């Protein structure tokens, strides 16, 4: 199936099913409901075949170009049917499993994620390990046929809903840095795991602390090679900056379009509006190029840090414009419209922090793309 055929089929199907797929917004909509909604969208699009396109057949997919995955998320976000932050986690986690898990494990697990039966999370950051990922200390000790994991993760998105976790652990000496890290695929119902959600600035318990107390993880759940977990993380991060960001780009244009169509006369400054629209289109063009490179089978690497910088800058610009345009709604509004702009504005402040901060991205660009050497 080519992209045009996929697009036509999906557009028609979405026109027909949009009422069932529509998300609700407002102060009364809980994160539980949002999660249920995304699972429903995944299930419906999987059953209709769209979600399976662009994934290998041996993990429940129907094969074909990854551009179809890109377009599915784009269409869902542009029609305002999903929260891309939750929906697009598939685009990061499934490729990691396909590349690094035992084939039987990936074949068993990935379909559950695509069908919306399961939610997975990504256990990377720790209390003393933010940008400096190579210093993580959550320990995995080999004990016969299992790893025994003890330590703590933080900023683990949606861990309270997660059935599985792609977890980075320290298997080398404490000083082994990025050479002594191993990635594991952990069942979140294993004994010894405690999840504590953190209420974030935008009023959602989206992030969690996760505590591991001598948690047994079968050794056949190791992703990639022992002590080579850094490669898993480095491989996964460019995915985080490709298809997911394309979906987010569609979401930003949808929000900007919504602001443009609903702003009171005189509220939008034309010069500010023009600049933000140009930024969203420049980001769109950049990410579009990345989607095509990925579809051609190019290996994505540090150049995706440019995409992340552009996303963060653009997302904040879109919601800064909203904050200038519907200032009273954001500051005072308790109706669904005001609540949504406020939530999104507050969440946009994280765009320069999560998934590698603005500073880390610029460090990567300086070192890897501009070849400026190290900063010491």
């Amino acid at each position: 199936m080519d992209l045009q055929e996929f697009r036509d089929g999906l557009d028609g199907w979405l026109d027909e099913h949009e009422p069932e797929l529509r998300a609700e917004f407002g102060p009364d909509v809980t994160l539980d409901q949002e999660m249920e909604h995304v699972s429903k969208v995944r299930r419906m699009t999987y059953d209709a075949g769209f979600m399976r396109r662009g994934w290998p057949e041996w993990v429940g997919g129907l094969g074909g170009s990854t551009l179809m995955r890109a377009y599915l998320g784009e269409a869902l976000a542009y029609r305002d049917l999903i929260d891309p932050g939750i929906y697009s986690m598939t685009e990061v986690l499934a490729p990691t499993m396909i590349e690094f898990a035992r084939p039987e494990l990936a074949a068993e697990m990935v379909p559950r994620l695509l069908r919306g039966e399961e939610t997975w999370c990504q256990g990377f950051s720790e209390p003393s390990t933010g940008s400096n990922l190579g210093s993580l200390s959550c320990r995995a000790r080999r004990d016969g046929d299992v790893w025994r994991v003890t330590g703590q993760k933080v900023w683990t998105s949606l861990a309270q809903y997660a059935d599985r976790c792609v977890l980075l652990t320290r298997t080398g000496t404490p000083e082994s840095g990025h050479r002594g890290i191993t990635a594991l695929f952990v069942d979140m119902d294993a004994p010894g795991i405690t999840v504590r959600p953190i209420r974030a600035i935008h009023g959602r318990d989206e992030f969690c602390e996760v505590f591991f107390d001598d948690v047994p993880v079968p050794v056949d759940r190791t992703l990639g090679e022992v002590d080579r977990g850094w490669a898993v993380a480095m491989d996964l991060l460019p995915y985080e900056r490709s298809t997911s960001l394309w979906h987010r780009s569609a979401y930003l244009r949808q929000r900007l379009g919504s602001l443009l169509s609903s702003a009171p006369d005189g509220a939008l400054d034309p010069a500010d509006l023009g600049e933000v629209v140009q930024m969203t289109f420049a980001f769109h063009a950049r990410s579009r190029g990345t989607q095509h490179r990925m579809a051609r089978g190019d290996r994505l690497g540090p150049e995706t840090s440019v995409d992340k910088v552009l996303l963060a800058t653009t997302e904040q610009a879109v919601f800064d414009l909203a904050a200038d345009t519907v200032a009273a709604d954001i500051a005072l509004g308790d109706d669904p419209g005001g609540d949504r702009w406020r939530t999104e504005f507050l969440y946009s402040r994280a765009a320069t922090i999560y998934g590698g901060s603005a500073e880390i991205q610029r460090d990567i660009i300086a070192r890897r793309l501009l070849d400026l050497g190290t900063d010491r």
Partner: protein
Amino acid sequence: MMDAQTAGLLAQSFESAFRHQNVTAVEAALEEIGWREALAEEAADVIPLLFTRQGGANAASGALDDVLNTALGLPADGDTAFVLPEFGTCTAPGSVRDGDLTVSGLGTARMPGAARAVVVAEDGGTLRAAVVETGKVETRPVGGVDPRLGLVTVEARGVRLDERVEVTAGRWADAVAAGQVALAHELAGTGRVMLGLTREHAVTRIQFGRPIGSFQAVRHRLAESLVAIEAAEGLAAAAAETLGPDRSDPGSAPLAAMAKAVAGRNARTVARHCQQVLAGVGFTDEHDFHHYFRRVLTLDGLLGDARTLTRGLGEELLRTRRLPVAPPL
């Protein structure tokens, strides 16, 4: 779509052409490459290739004249220049009253040596294009901030016109779009060289016992510059895809203007960061940086500057209250 090997060879030919020291020699080299034939057939591919290199070489030619003449469906040759709109704007430079033409615009480095110039003029509510002999208009070299670009002002009053062809508003918009895409690539090419020169300085200049490129403040400025260039180039490339006779699409005009605006604004961002990192040496005539900075300041004003295009876009969107369609995957 041009294959990668052909594109690579053509790019090399353009690079050689732009190594010539004067406009006549550059134009002759472009003629030999067959640039105008390639333009007529594959505008979307060759415009980015040529203008990126023209910017990178800090060179001047009449290639922009060819782009506009070709897009208007008029004969394009090395003896025919094009009268560009006044600095900062993208409205037609001429007006016709009672068959007499008044012109106030700019010409590229081709203009002084050209036999004819195409003038697009407003004539009783419609646009018309006329080919006038350059002897009938007054051209004057622009000194200004970037004398090496060879721009001239073009002025004329009361030129009697016998023949002129109607230009539809859509055609004029397409021509302006093609020119804007060309200039956006030229600005991006200019930015890349500024960054390259500055990177070289950052890895060789030692202060406090280490290269200044090891200091985070410097690294982040250069990273920011690369992001600015890549963003401008990506949008310019997307706009280029919409050019050409068989890809005419109503969405192309806003995309090209956006690309030109982003390229102009981002090139200034790059210049600001680079000049700061180059510090003293970037403030001298002895380092090449200033040639590129001068070029940015001038190119930004051709076919609409960033500020005017950005405000214009915002005003247009507030009239329609709809975002333009983004290029599909």
